[in-house]
């Protein structure tokens, strides 16, 4: 049985950009989990389609819709309003709705809400993200841990490089960097290095 990974646009792009043994982390994740997209995120990804990304046709397989309520009805209940297509935060909210629906309507277990948009988790999804304990929240860094635990990434050095590549590929331009952000990244790098070492003990 595979995990069900509801993936956000930014994570989809980041994981596509980073490679390990000449394959993108996204392609490894696609094989190791059931990738799921809300219709809105599927449209957002279409706007950022890069060479080698799953095509529009292939992504159709990943798109799920909500069953217990319609997505607009879920939006109204969770966010207090319905969102227009392309409206800010709609992708994240709809993905979270799909996550809830997958767990609590379809009774799927092992549902992961994957996003690298920390603003969204601190903002619009702040209450939801702590109110549904069955949904695990991951960033792309957790994907690297997962792929390493599953030995899809075969060595700690490659996993460590993948963490470094994720940091590098998501970094702001030099002029936009701040000392606080740099320190946050250094701390994050050290934390995930420590987590990789912990994981390596089970092998």
């Amino acid at each position, binding site marked *: 049985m595979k995990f069900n990974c509801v993936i956000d646009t930014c994570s989809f792009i980041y994981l596509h950009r980073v490679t390990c043994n000449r394959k993108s982390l996204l392609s490894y994740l696609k094989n190791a989990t059931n990738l799921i997209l809300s219709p809105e995120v599927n449209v957002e990804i279409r706007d950022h389609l890069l060479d080698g990304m799953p095509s529009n046709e292939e992504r159709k397989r990943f798109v799920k819709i909500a069953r217990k309520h319609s997505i607009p009805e879920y939006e109204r209940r969770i966010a207090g309003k319905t969102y227009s297509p392309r409206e800010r935060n709609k992708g994240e909210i709809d993905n979270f709705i799909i996550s809830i629906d997958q767990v609590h309507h379809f009774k799927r277990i092992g549902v992961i809400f994957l996003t690298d948009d920390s603003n969204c988790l601190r903002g619009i999804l702040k209450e939801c993200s702590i109110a549904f304990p069955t949904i695990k929240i991951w960033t792309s860094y957790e994907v690297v841990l997962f792929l390493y635990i599953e030995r899809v990434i075969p060595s700690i050095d490659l996993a*460590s490089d993948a963490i470094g590549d994720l*940091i*590098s590929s998501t*970094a702001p331009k030099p002029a936009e960097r701040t000392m606080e952000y740099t*320190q946050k990244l*250094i701390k994050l790098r050290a934390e995930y290095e420590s987590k990789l070492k912990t994981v390596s003990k089970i092998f």
Partner: protein
Amino acid sequence: MSTLNDLNLRFNPFRDLTPDVANNHLFWAGLPDLKARIERSYSDCLNNKAKHINLNWGPYGGGKTFTANYFVTKNFTQPNITQIYIRSPKDGTKATDEFFKSILDSLSFSRIKSHIEFLVNNTNPDDFRNFLITRARSEEFADAIIKLGSTDPEISNLMRSYVYSGVTKTELKKLGLARDLQTDTDSVKFLSGLLSCFVGDGTFYDGRIFLWIDEMEDLIYYSPKNYKVFSQVLRDLFDYIPNSFVSFLNFTLAEGEEKTIELILGGAVWSRITRKIRFKELTSQDATLYCEDLIRHAQLNANGLSPFTANVIQSIIGLISSNNITPREINRYFSSVITFAMQNNHTTVDLSIVAAWQVDFQEDN
């Protein structure tokens, strides 16, 4: 509104929140142990031709960049000292190129030209060429370095292009060289040869190089692929210059341990570090000495701690969070007090003025 002179100050000694190389008042205040540790590296190199790779690490605002500026602009009595200050390259994809050009800029092309010209004119040509071949590990780059000292304006202009932007095959032919600087390895070889000219072999020239690389924490932004290339460049450079060379790597780490720095710098660079100098948060005692030294240095007329008193200094330091007492925070607080005192037409700073300033300061922060 009063002036700095009314406060018995020639200038505001706390004005720099970020170090300013153009500041004519660069003055080392307090922290005698820290200064002594840096000075030891300098004197060991100056007196014993030693080679050191120092890691200076500590919190943001802890004085690492100031220390670089202070020592780089300091006048030493010994001759033939070359001081280079650069920041770590920001773009990992072009790190080697940026590093190479930053060093050339810091040295300046005109200084490089005149120095090589001096060496060419005062050394046996074969000996100098052989020396360069050993250090640059390339005959082609040894010849290119010699051409940097050419007095022919056309050759000199072409060599400027050679190091900064590259030259065409026709221009290479005109220079009588077979190879341009194409790869990172080429750049390192050329740089090693060039820097060796500022060290010499103790016979035709006896120099010392002090290379400061600031903001090494920016290596966190490099992809592992780019990082490996750049760390190899640093490693080769450190290895190719055998002596009379000191490098200081400044690394800001807000929280964490040395092993975090090792992770970011990587084993190749980490294993070459010979000294680790910690820029710690200041104790209250350190902070007091720092303030007293700065105030005395800036006083118009020597008069105790005027315009402050020992009590006032203590009370201001006491307002800074105890885990964040750094020179930058101290400067921020004291600079604000001085500005407040001037704006309110005071000529001294007493506890009542500090109390009134504190209300203002808390509102603004």
